[in-house]
């Protein structure tokens, strides 16, 4: 701070360091939280989303009973908790593999047991009531099976991966995901370069490095914390329009988890910055006392 020549460069480097730290945070959270399938899998287990999904499917088939006359047990007896859990988790693993360019996207689900159950019900019904098994019967059976597939598919797609794939979102992510790792390295290198440059600029008065690093970290923390605090305090994601319990819980928990991770990162930056400023002040006081 004593050297007027180094003041402006230090301010400029501090500004660069603020954004470079923000970028580092965003990249790290993206790699470790957003693009980590374990985040989704953990949410499914913690929030018991498989049971919620099964309850929703059961409710839907109960409602359908009013217009189809097909008892919900026809469907539900072939939809076990384990089968549904596998479907939900496989869909997520599959989506992450696709996004990371490791496999093709697949929507295939083994519905054999369900199809057999519906077919069995139709056949029994037709036999008991003397219903002729003509083309109309086959059409009805096919339509009922297709509808059941659609209901289960859409209910079990709790992170809406099919929609994201169909809308081309995954394709876009897939295209840029390769750059994310490079970008993370780039930001980390930028951080290191900025710190080294600050060190060189403050070489004559080395304790000033603590001041410049401190304010950079604090400002980076503040800028990063503003949106996080707004999102958390206003329960922003609770306003999500899809209110199917399993989808709502999956999405909002995922988004709040990202927000929380970023908040922790920014609070750590802020705390580190404050600590550096405190150390800088203490050293200055000691120096002043000694002189």
């Amino acid at each position, binding site marked *: *701070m*004593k050297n007027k020549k180094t*003041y402006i460069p230090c*301010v400029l480097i*501090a*500004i660069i360091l*603020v*954004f470079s730290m923000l970028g580092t945070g965003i990249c790290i959270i993206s790699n470790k939280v957003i693009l980590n399938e374990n985040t989704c899998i953990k949410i499914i287990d913690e929030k018991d989303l498989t049971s*919620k999904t099964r*309850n929703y499917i059961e*409710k*839907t088939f109960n*409602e*359908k009973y*009013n*217009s*189809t*006359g*097909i008892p919900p047990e026809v469907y539900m007896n072939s939809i076990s908790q384990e089968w549904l859990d596998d479907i939900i988790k496989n869909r997520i693993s599959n989506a992450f593999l696709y996004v990371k360019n490791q496999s093709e996207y697949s929507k295939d689900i083994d519905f054999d047991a369900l199809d057999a159950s519906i077919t069995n019900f*139709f056949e029994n*019904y*037709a036999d008991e*009531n003397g*219903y002729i098994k003509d083309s109309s*019967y086959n059409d*009805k*059976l096919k*339509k*009922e099976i297709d*509808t059941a597939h659609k209901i289960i598919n859409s209910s079990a797609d709790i992170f809406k991966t099919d929609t994201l794939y169909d809308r081309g979102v995954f394709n876009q992510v897939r295209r840029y995901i390769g750059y994310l790792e490079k970008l993370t390295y780039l930001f980390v290198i930028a951080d290191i370069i900025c710190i080294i440059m600050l060190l060189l600029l403050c070489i004559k008065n080395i304790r000033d490095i603590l*001041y410049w690093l401190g*304010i*950079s970290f*604090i*400002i980076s923390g*503040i*800028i990063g914390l503003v949106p996080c605090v707004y999102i958390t305090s206003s*329960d*922003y*994601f*609770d*306003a*999500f*329009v899809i*209110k*199917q*319990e399993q989808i*709502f*819980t999956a999405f909002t928990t995922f988004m709040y988890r990202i927000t929380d991770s970023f908040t922790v990162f920014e609070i750590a930056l802020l705390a580190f910055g404050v600590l550096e400023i405190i150390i800088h002040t203490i050293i200055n006081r000691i120096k002043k006392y000694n002189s």
Partner: protein
Amino acid sequence: MNEDKKNESKKSGRLLISVLTPIFILIICLGITIVAVIKPYNKISTYLNLAFMDSLKTIPDTNGITAGLNIKENEIKVEYDKEFSETGKVIRPSFGEQFAIISSDKFELDVPVYWGSNSELFERGACQSSSSMLIGEIGNAVISAHVNTFFSELEKLESGDKVEVATNYGIFTYEVTETVEFKKSNKKYIIPKDEEVLTLYTCKPDVLGASDLRIGAVCKVVDKKFYINSEDGQKGEQ
């Protein structure tokens, strides 16, 4: 003495710079962030507004009721002994609110009518599509219900039959002009119309699975009685 003063002012100057520098950097960084974010935000704001609506800031409960759906049961008066008016104002119900009761000599039970179509509402009564006109307004008021629950007797209606719709703002009498059967994909009877009609429809009963056919009755209005004091028409409870 002068030297001391100089040193003192230098020190206070340095202290001032130390305090002002972070504020200055913070303002610059905030400015840069706002400028950098403003364009992408404008681009995605429409999607954000669609995906996150403040009016829907409700967490789904586990009782099977869709979050954000505020079901309101009203006690609609079907008999009214006070004054009526031929003209009056309709009261637009909120989504999920029971606002009318349909009765007819052909129906054994009166059918409650809710504003909006939703699976939970279909469990409680007939539903009027919120995109159709309200009872008492010029246009097509479209009401539907499940065939094996609230509209199980709909197929009993014949041309000339009377249907009475008591709402929380008046009582309206309709006459069946046509009984219809149409495919689910055929929107002819549910699209907006210039005349004041009431369209009631349900699924055609089918022996196996859901039917693609719909049966219904198109009715014309024959009597309109608006309550002078619309608050007389209902007693609300949630």
